[in-house]
């Protein structure tokens, strides 16, 4: 791999031990993927923040790096933490270890207002900009909707890339790899989060790389289109390693290639409902916000038309996960929460900076939860211990 003068100095240790280790890892991974050089990145996004996922070994790695003076060289955001970060568990050690992880990340330079899986709402990448993002749902959104260029980095390479401000030039950073692997024609209108999710989970199982998706979306307003896309893409990235989908009419031009000779696949709505029998369960808790909701999206889903659906399902508590930057004490939000509690007897609990699927929900006495989100449907049981029950929203 060709390295410039600065990169050579980083590799020889002139910028310190941490930088040397960081560039070593990026160069080694880059060599495996045939990269001939490193490229500058504008924004790094780190995954692997929940103590439940990374454990004591991950915690030690992050604390060790921060104590050795590791500092990010570009704008860096991080994924949400587990509910232990909000001290929700009756286990002080657990809560403390989660907080140690976030403190180590902030000390290294991570934006303390991030802790979200939708980092593009904090800094929207430009078309063609190079990023080093982990978090599969954010990666696929950045490449497919925003036209930015990022690989699906591992939690650790995203951090190493942040520490040197660079990543390896291969995969999704090169236009020739952003080529459709098959054309997928959707034979029905995508009109709900659940439908977008089930479709995404299905596409993830059949794509061979970069699906080119031709679909119609039924939407009343722009925020709903974004929710549908976000959920479809996050679901694709749950059941596959796809880091990009080419969305007809949405993916910015000149950021992808479509050859005329690709295989064409048609998806009928019925196919999506073939494997949902074990998800037709009941719960009194609803989970919203996987991926995180923006304030506008949250307020849209807390409107009466949706609350009435939730009531019919016997839901008495709604957990909403959002980014750490959302002001949950604003008058607008407080008024809506109070109104829903008084009028509908439903408690809305907003959890900033956190994520339910990377939290142990069984320890919080939740054995099942309703959710319309495909990513949550895919991961909930194995990661949180709670059974996902689907709800048509």
């Amino acid at each position: 791999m060709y390295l410039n003068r600065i990169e050579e100095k980083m590799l020889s240790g002139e910028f310190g031990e941490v930088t040397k280790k960081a560039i070593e890892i990026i160069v080694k991974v880059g060599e495996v993927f045939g990269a001939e050089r490193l490229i500058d990145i504008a924004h790094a996004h780190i995954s692997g923040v929940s103590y439940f996922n990374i454990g004591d070994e991950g915690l030690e790695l992050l604390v060790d790096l921060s104590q050795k003076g590791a500092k990010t060289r570009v704008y860096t955001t991080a994924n949400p933490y587990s509910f232990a970060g909000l001290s929700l568990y009756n286990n002080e050690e657990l809560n403390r270890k989660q907080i140690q992880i976030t403190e180590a990340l902030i000390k290294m330079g991570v934006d303390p207002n991030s802790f979200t899986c939708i980092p593009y709402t904090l800094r929207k990448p430009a078309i063609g900009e190079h990023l080093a993002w982990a978090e599969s749902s954010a990666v696929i959104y950045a490449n497919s909707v925003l036209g930015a260029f990022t690989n699906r980095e591992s939690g650790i390479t995203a951090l190493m890339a942040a520490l040197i401000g660079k990543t390896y030039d291969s995969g999704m950073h090169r236009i020739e790899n952003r080529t459709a692997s098959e054309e997928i024609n959707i034979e029905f209108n995508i009109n709900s989060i659940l439908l977008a999710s089930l479709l995404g989970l299905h596409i993830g199982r059949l794509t061979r790389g970069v699906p080119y998706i031709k679909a119609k979306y039924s939407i009343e307003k722009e925020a709903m289109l974004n929710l549908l896309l976000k959920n479809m893409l996050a679901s694709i990235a749950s059941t596959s390693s796809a880091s990009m989908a080419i969305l007809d009419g949405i993916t910015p031009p000149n950021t992808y290639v479509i050859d005329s000779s690709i295989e064409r696949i048609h998806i009928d709505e019925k196919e999506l409902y073939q494997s949902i029998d074990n998800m037709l369960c009941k719960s009194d808790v609803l989970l919203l916000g996987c991926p995180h909701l923006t304030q506008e999206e949250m307020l849209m889903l807390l409107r009466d038309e949706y609350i009435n659906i939730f009531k019919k399902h016997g839901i008495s508590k709604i957990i909403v996960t959002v980014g750490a930057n959302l002001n949950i004490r604003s008058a607008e939000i407080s008024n809506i929460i109070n109104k829903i509690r008084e009028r509908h007897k439903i408690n809305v609990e907003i959890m900033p900076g956190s994520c339910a699927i990377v939290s142990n929900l069984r320890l919080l006495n939740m054995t099942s939860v309703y959710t319309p989100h495909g990513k949550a449907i895919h991961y909930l049981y194995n990661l949180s211990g709670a059974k996902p029950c689907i709800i048509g929203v």
Partner: protein
Amino acid sequence: MHNRCIELSNVITIGKGNAFGKTIKLDTLSFLGDVDRESGKIIAQDLKAKGKSLASTILVVKRFRGSTVGVYVLYSLCKKGLAPKAILMVDPDPVVVTGMILCNIIGVAKLPEDVYNTIADDVDTEVGCYNGTAKLCFQ
């Protein structure tokens, strides 16, 4: 004694050296969600290898899937001595490759699919990797 060996040249190898273990062959796997971080056992409902431990195996996977946090799970497993000895994959996956580099796990990042198809599950296997060449011997 080996019954059969395959030599691969011009492949992308990770690390150098030899490893010996039983194969676990899977179409897909995510280290996060499909593998228990404490025991190293496969917990995914939809995988036929559910309940098997990855410790000291030769893990053969066509395509890894899902979370980018998988690297930490692999890192945790190797710190506990529960990681596979070698990993062979058809589609190279940056999440898994990073974990292999951190943990000094050897393997092949772009195993030809016809070779993948000839590898059997649960067979004693020796893997040798050296600078773009790999040798797989099965008992």
